[in-house]
C-alpha cells in the first residue's frame, strides 16, 4: 500500500462503515443479554458495548494515522507494507484494550461487566471478526468495487 494521510483516513472510515459496522451489529446481537436494549420495530436485543469498542478502535486509528504517515516519510518507497498494516492493527487493538482496562468505558456500565476475563475474550473475538475481513479487503478486494482506490492513495471517488 502507498497511502497518503488523507487516504489512510478515508480508507479507515470506509472499512469502518462497510465492514466494521455491519459485523459489529451482528456481533452485538450475539452478545446481547436479557437486560440489553431492544431494537425498535424488530425487537431484537442488542448490546451497545461492541459499538463502543469499534468506535474506540476508529478513534485510536485516526489519531495514529499521522504517526504512520510520518514514519512513511523515512521509507524511500513511501509505502506501507501489508506486514506493517497487520502489525499496527494489532497494536491499535492492544491500545484499545489498555484504554478499556484504564476505564474509558466505565461511565457506561458496571466495572465488573467490562473487566471480566470473559469480556476481554469477547473483545478479542470481536476484533478478530472485524480485523480479518478488513485486512483481506485492503489486500485487494476493495479494488473489485473501487477500481481507482489504489491509484488515489486510499481515497475514495473518481480521479
Amino acid at each position, binding site marked *: 500500500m502507498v497511502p497518503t494521510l488523507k487516504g489512510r483516513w478515508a480508507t479507515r472510515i470506509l472499512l469502518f462503515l462497510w465492514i466494521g459496522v455491519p459485523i459489529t451489529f451482528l456481533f452485538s446481537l450475539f452478545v446481547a443479554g436479557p437486560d440489553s436494549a431492544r431494537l425498535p420495530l424488530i425487537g431484537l436485543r442488542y448490546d451497545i458495548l461492541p459499538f463502543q469498542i469499534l468506535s474506540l478502535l476508529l478513534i485510536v486509528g485516526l489519531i495514529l494515522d499521522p504517526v504512520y504517515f510520518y514514519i512513511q516519510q523515512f521509507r524511500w518507497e513511501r509505502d506501507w507494507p501489508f506486514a506493517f498494516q497487520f502489525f499496527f492493527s494489532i497494536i491499535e487493538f492492544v491500545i484499545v484494550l489498555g484504554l478499556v482496562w484504564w476505564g474509558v468505558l466505565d461511565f457506561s456500565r458496571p466495572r465488573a461487566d467490562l473487566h471480566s476475563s470473559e469480556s476481554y475474550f469477547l473483545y478479542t473475538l470481536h476484533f478478530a471478526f472485524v480485523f480479518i475481513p478488513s485486512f483481506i479487503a485492503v489486500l*485487494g478486494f476493495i479494488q473489485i468495487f473501487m477500481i481507482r482506490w489504489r491509484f488515489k492513495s486510499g481515497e475514495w471517488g473518481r480521479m
Partner: protein
Amino acid sequence: MVKFPILLDIYQRGEGPLKRVERISLPEAGDYAIGRVGDNQIVLDTPEVSKHHAWLLVREDGIAVSDRGSTNRTYIGDSEVDTSPWDGALPVRIAQFEIHLVPQTSAGETRVNVAQENATRAVSSNATPSAPAAPAPRGQSIEVALNAPSAPNETRFPRNIFKGEIVSAQEIKASEFFAGETTYITVGAGLGSFVWADHLRIFGVSTGEIRAIGDAVVPYANYQRLCRNSQIPPHERLRSNSLSTPDNIWGFPGYASRETWKDLKEFRFSGLKHIFQVFGEASLAQTFTPRSGEVFKSIDKEAERIGWREMFVAGRVLGIRKTNDERYAVAYRVPEDEARAGVRERVMIGKFLHISTGYPATRFTEDLQAFKARFPEEARVFNAYENHEVVYRNLQSNPAPATVVVRGRGIVASRIIQRLYEERAKNKGITIVHQMRNPIGKNEGYRYKRAQRYVYNHIENQAFNWPKACWGGQLLRETERASPEERVKIYEALGGTTTADRRDWRNIIQLGLGDGWYKPVFGHFETLELVKTDQGPKIQMKLKAQRNQPPVEVVADYVLDCTGLIGDISHSPLLRDLAETYKLPRTLGVGGGKIGGIFVTPDFEISALRNGNGRAYAAGQITLGGPQPGVDTFLGMQYSALRSVDHMAVLGAPHLSLFGPLRSFSQWIRWCTNATP
C-alpha cells in the same frame, strides 16, 4: 563533397557476427532504389525487406536515405528515419542488412581497396546492363541490379493528402485510401494500446467501435523481444509487482495469488510463499515478481476475452491529422499481402485517439556505436536489448579464458551478470568486468526529502523502476501537482539507475568478488580499439582516470552495453511530424534542458491536439517526464488508461460508463468467469 565512386559495404546479420555479403560502388550521383524486387538498383532479397524499401539519394554534396513506407522501416544507426541525410558515421540498417559507407580517406587508398575486392560491383544509376549475379538461395541473397531509377515521389503518402494542419474528412472519404471510420482509435497496438482497449471494452464499448493499428497482433510482441534479448526467458521473473496486471484492470487477483493457486492445485504447498512475499514485501520477504511467461499467457487470455483480434488492424502508422469535422485522420500503410489493387495506403477516421507507440530505439553509447561502425564484422559489442546469444554460445563452445565487459548498473546489467554466471558452470574462464560511471558509497544513495536509497556494491537498490509511491501514493500526487520545472527536480531526485534487491544476484556478486572473476571498474571509456593478441583479436578499452586514480585499461572479448533504450520521441518520424505540425509542447528532459516526451495533462490528454469534441491521449514511454513517473510500466499503463478513459466517460463519449462500484463488481465477475465484457 562526395567523391565518386562511392563504395558501400553491405553486411548481413545472422546468428553470428555480421557478414559482408557485397561491396558495391556507385559511380555517380543519382537515386538508387533499395528493395526486395528486381526493379530496384540494390536488391536485398529477404522477406523482411519491402518490395520498394528505401531510396539512397546520392548528390554531389551529400547522401540522403529515404524510407519508402517500408513495413520494417529504415534506420540510421538506431534511429528510425523517414528522410535523413547520411554521413556514413553510422550504418543504414534495413531488416538484417547493414549498409556501411566505405571511408573515403584518399583516392589512392580507395583504389587499393577496390583492387583487393574482386567482389566489388559497379552500380549505375543509368541503365547499363551487366551480367546477373550468381543466384543465391532466397532469403539470403543480395543482388545489385542495374535498372534505371525513377525519381522519388515528392508528394509521398500521407503528405499528398495531409497538406495542412486540418484535413477535410469529406475528401478523405472520397479518396481511394479511405478505410472506414470508428469511434476509438489507438495507435501502436502494443501493451499501452491493449490496456487502453481493455478498459474501453470493460467500460462498455463494443469491439466494432475500437481499432488498434500497429505492427503485430500480439500486443506484447515488442516487449517480449526485449525481454528475451535482455535475458528474461519465460521462466524468469520480470521487474513488476503482483498487482500490476495488464490483463486485469482491477489488479486483483494479482500474479502472486494466481501463482499460489496454481501451485496449490498441484499440491505444491511451497506456493504459499508467494502470498507471504506480498504480505511481507520488502521488509520480511523478497518482493514478489511474476514470471514473464505467466504474464504473456494472461494477456493472451484477456486478448481472447475482449476480442482483440477483431479490433486489431495490421499497419504502420505514418501520420495523424485533425479533420475538419472535429475528429482525427490516421494514415497508415498495411502489409503487402493486404494491398488493395496494389494500394497499401489507408486512412481511418476516429473521434477519440490514443497514441502509445513505445520506445523508438535502443540506445548505444557513442563510443560503442563508433566501434560497431568501424568493425562491423566483429560480433563483440552488443546492446543488451539486441539479440546477443552468439556471445553466450561462443563462451560455451570455446572454453578459453574470456573477459566480458558489462556496462551499466541497471536491472539489465544484473540479469546479464546472472546469465554470465550461469555460463561459468560450463566455462570457468569467464571473467566479468563491470563498468560503472562512478563508485557510489554506502551512504551516497539518492535522497528525496527525508529518505535515502539503499546502496549495495556501488549500485542503488530499488524494487521497481521508481519508488512504489510513484504509482498511486504521495510521490504520484507530488509529481502530478508540480510545475514542469519542479517535476524535473523530483525526477532527478527519484530517478537514476537502480537494480532490484535480489538475494541470488547479491550472492553472485559476493562469489565473484571473492573468487576474483567479477570486478567493478569505474569511469568513462576514452578509447575503444581492436587489438591483435596471441588469443586473437580483443577489444582494448582505456578508462578516463578517476580522481587520484591511475587510468584503467581493460582488454576484453565482449562488451555488453546495458545502458538502456532511447525514449526521445524525435527518433520516431510519426511523432516528430506530429510534434512539428501541431507544435506540441514537450516535457522537460531529466538532466536539464534536454527535450523529453509529449506533454500531457494529468488525464493523459495531449491538449494541443484537442479538436472540438475530439480528444487525443497518449500513454507509455512517449509521455516521459509528465504527470506520472512510471509511464513505461504495466501499472503506469493501467493508470494512464484509466485516467484517459475516465476523462472520456465524463465527457459523455459513446458507450462509456462511469464505472461505479456495481458495474465494476459485475464486470469483475465476468473477468473471473472468462465471459466477454
